[in-house]
């Protein structure tokens, strides 16, 4: 079933043109990288603030309010561009174990983002950041770095992408 969808996607003329034309393929890649930098960088900063390692003059809530809109906006751009890249070689990604690992790690990282966003206001009002808040922050950083590692391993180990 999923393989059928992958074939259909890959044979779709719109997808084929985007991935087959040098400048559109490059544009999609640029969007994917740049949005990934904003997404991961902003989230890591929020996590580091929860850990108390970013300038404390700035409250964790203040910083989160500033950065979460960019985090979610860049996630959307990252997803759309990533989907276009996936669709162009969908059947190859279908057989690619590391690609599934990457998607799994990214999903977990997004769950961690949501938890931090939901809870940061509450944590900020406490006299000190609770241990489990800091654990989530460490986990979040680890997951995003893990997503980057899985991301570079997809072409490095499997030649896809």
């Amino acid at each position, binding site marked *: 079933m999923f393989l059928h969808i992958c074939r259909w996607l890959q044979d779709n003329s719109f997808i084929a043109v985007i991935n087959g034309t*040098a400048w559109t393929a*490059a544009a999609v*890649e*640029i969007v994917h*990288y*740049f949005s*990934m*930098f*904003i*997404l*991961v*960088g*902003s*989230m*890591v*900063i929020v996590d*580091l*603030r929860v850990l108390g*390692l*970013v*300038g404390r*003059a*700035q409250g964790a*809530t*203040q*910083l989160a*309010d*500033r*950065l979460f*809109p*960019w985090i979610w906006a860049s996630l959307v751009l990252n997803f759309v561009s990533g989907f276009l890249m996936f669709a162009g070689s969908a059947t190859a990604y279908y057989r690619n174990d590391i690609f599934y690992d990457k998607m799994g790690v990214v999903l977990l990282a997004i769950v961690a983002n949501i938890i931090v966003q939901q809870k940061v206001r509450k944590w900020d009002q406490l006299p000190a950041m609770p241990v489990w808040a800091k654990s989530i922050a460490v986990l979040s950083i680890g997951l*995003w*770095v893990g997503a*980057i*590692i899985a*991301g*570079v*391993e997809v072409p*490095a*180990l499997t030649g896809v992408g």
Partner: protein
Amino acid sequence: MDGSLLGFGQWLQNRSFALAIAGSDWAYPLVQATHFTGLSIWVGTNVAVDLSLIGLGKKSSTSLQLSDALFIWNWIGFGIAVIGGFLLFSVSAETYLTNIAFLTKLGLLIPLGLVLHVVIQQKAPMWEKALETPPVAKVAGFTELLLWLCVATAAVLIPYVG
């Protein structure tokens, strides 16, 4: 390309650390991941301040407060990106030195971006004193955002033009 620069590239890529990275299955992707992680912190912190200067997003703090809070991690991110980037470069230095996209990125776009970045960090306290963000601050923030996007563009184009 200048012969001595190419000579340097050849010398660099024959250093033992460069040969070790090139010859290992896992080292090269890990160096790549290091470069991207550093870049994420650098670009993420830059974009946050630039967008704030432009006047976008929640005004939960001023651009100066944001810039000050992110200052250390901004440069830590840059340091990690440079180390990772240098190692990636050293693996095939000679090829990079003949690639027009790489030369534009390193010789033109990154220096321009860095100069503007330092100017913004220097000028932020002055802009802060004005009642309203002066137009020059908005233009500077927008230009910096655009410059780093150009850097990413040149980087993506390296394999396309090589």
